[in-house]
């Protein structure tokens, strides 16, 4: 199991830290997909970088909380220390494969490199494994494509190569940060199907980060909705879509343009998310919340369990089953 426990990531001076990820907790079982959804700047990517030990330096730092991989605390370990300690069964794929791949090295060599980080095997054996990995992610003519350079592949194929590199280390945890956002819907569809299949087949715990509620509905088993650095709602995917409890989750769903709805006005969320550091007392969403009451502006909300496995960070969650 992979767990993040009360994780806080901060920027700014030690004496006056600004929390960009604030007391975030979640856990993912093997074979399960947790979708982390939120808008830009909500802290979802920082959460994933902190979990991977990849926070940029100098810059944001983990102020408190823990990252647990199968019970081992890896919070303070650098990536190389994780490898030495044997806690390196985590991999990550990013939004833009072209910037993650080395443009002047053949994709086969890049996969071989990842294979040999973990396994002390001969070059020939590693190359054979690289070919298997390309077949696994369904790249046609895998043996031939080993010698391709990244620019010779389409966006979807590059993302498949990234997935192959991630799988090369035989991860138990896979973090995917908006891996399909830059792709066409038809290609996205295939990559989502591939990720789900691999996750089940290799018993991988996957954290899938996206801003797209549609993608969440298609892929995730459970969902965590993030707003202004905090997780405001966690639920099984069908429970969240059936009855979102947090007013922010409800608003996010309501403002999606849905086909066939005609040209009626879209619902919107007024205003903007607060800047980190400018947050006042009370609930961070209060200023934009259609359900906000006076006390929301002064009293910080607490986590409530509105149903089994359905947690919400709101003083007045919507639990009466109103449609969104």
């Amino acid at each position, binding site marked *: 199991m992979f767990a993040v426990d009360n994780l806080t990531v901060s920027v700014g001076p030690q004496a006056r830290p600004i929390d960009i990820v604030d007391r975030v907790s979640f856990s993912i079982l093997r074979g399960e997909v947790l979708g982390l959804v939120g808008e830009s700047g909500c802290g979802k990517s920082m959460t994933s970088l902190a979990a991977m030990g990849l926070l940029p330096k100098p810059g944001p730092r983990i102020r408190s909380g823990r990252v647990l991989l199968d019970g081992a605390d890896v919070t303070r370990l650098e990536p190389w220390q994780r490898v030495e300690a044997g806690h390196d069964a985590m991999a990550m794929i990013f939004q833009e494969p072209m910037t993650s791949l080395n443009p002047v090295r053949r994709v086969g060599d890049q996969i071989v490199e990842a294979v040999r980080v973990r396994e002390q095997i001969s070059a020939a054996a590693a190359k054979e494994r690289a070919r298997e990995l390309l077949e696994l992610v369904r790249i046609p003519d895998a043996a031939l494509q080993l010698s391709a350079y990244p620019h010779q592949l389409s966006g979807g194929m590059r993302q498949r190569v990234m997935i192959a590199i991630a799988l090369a280390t035989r991860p138990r945890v896979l973090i995917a940060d908006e891996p399909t956002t830059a792709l066409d819907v038809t290609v996205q*569809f295939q990559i989502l199907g591939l990720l789900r*299949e691999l996750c089940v087949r290799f018993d991988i715990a996957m954290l899938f980060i996206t801003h*797209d509620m549609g993608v969440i509905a298609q892929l995730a088993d459970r969902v965590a909705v993030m707003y202004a650095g905090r997780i405001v709602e966690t639920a099984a995917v069908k429970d969240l879509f059936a009855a979102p409890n947090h007013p922010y989750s409800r608003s996010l769903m309501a*403002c999606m*343009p849905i086909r066939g709805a005609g040209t009626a*006005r879209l619902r919107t969320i007024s205003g903007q998310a607060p800047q980190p550091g400018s947050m006042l007392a009370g609930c961070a969403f209060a200023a934009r919340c259609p359900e906000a009451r006076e006390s929301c502006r002064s009293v910080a909300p607490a986590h409530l369990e509105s149903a089994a496995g359905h947690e919400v960070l709101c003083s007045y969650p919507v639990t009466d089953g109103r449609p969104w």
Partner: protein
Amino acid sequence: MVTGETILTVEGLRLHFDVRRGGRHLQVRAVDDVSLSLREREVLGIVGESGSGKTTVGRSIMRLAQPQAGRVVFRGRDVLRQGGEGLNDLRLRIRMVFQDPYASLNPRRSIGDSVAEAGDINGVFTGRADRQRRIAESLTNVGLDPSLAGRYPHELSGGQRQRVGIARAILPVPDVVIADEPVSALDVSIQAQVLNLLSDLRERLGLSMILISHDIGVIGHMSDRVAVMYMGRIVEFGEAREVIDRPSHPYTVALMAAVPKPDPSLRIAGTIAASEPPSQFDRPEGCAYAPRCPLANDRCRVEAPVLRPVGTQVVACHNALPG
């Protein structure tokens, strides 16, 4: 919707790029024999994957790309043959909103100067006071505070910047606005605000609009009529409701099926057969969609289908599904 006379027509537009790859001369048929018409006060949606040519069509109408063949006629004037004064005037009548509000604003110019730029170049303003008034009016029209005129792009959020992009498009009170992926760089909550704004402006200023997007949700929500493009050609064209809800071309059907629906009960199990788009460089003989098409037969692989009426839409497919 309230739509009337045709305001803009595109006939037989063709734009091929010559490229060199590995010493070979290759040709990309970015736009291949595209014809369209835009009616007064209508929103015409163009949807397709990346590389389908939808942006090149928009840029050709603006004369930002030079097509090799075809005609673009705006209110009886041949757009592709305008030069000098005529072209300047045309670019006040037809305006464009771009995708990336970060890249399309000059970081060293104030918001007011950016919004007024087209007016400044064309001597639209009668004086300083008129210029200020028109800038303020434009900003108010897009829901921004006129005091933002003195600010710079880096001081604004993404949503505000896209509003500025729209403000500069509507300053000369154009007839046609071409919006190329106007919301794809924005968060969903902001996206809804900007789409509502575009709808409002269409009503208030009586604009006709060409909306280019890869997002069928956005296109279906905003458009009166929709053109679906695939590898440089229109493969289906018709009323939005028909095209979106009862697609006839197998490509439109696949495109609709691939959109992730926000409903976990409609989850698609397992993997799907749909493959990736073929390379731009070796466009298949016959129908360009045939290699990916579940309905393709021998005829599709040799004979390129032409647009023909199927039900209420026009469809380029030998085996078009009847709605």
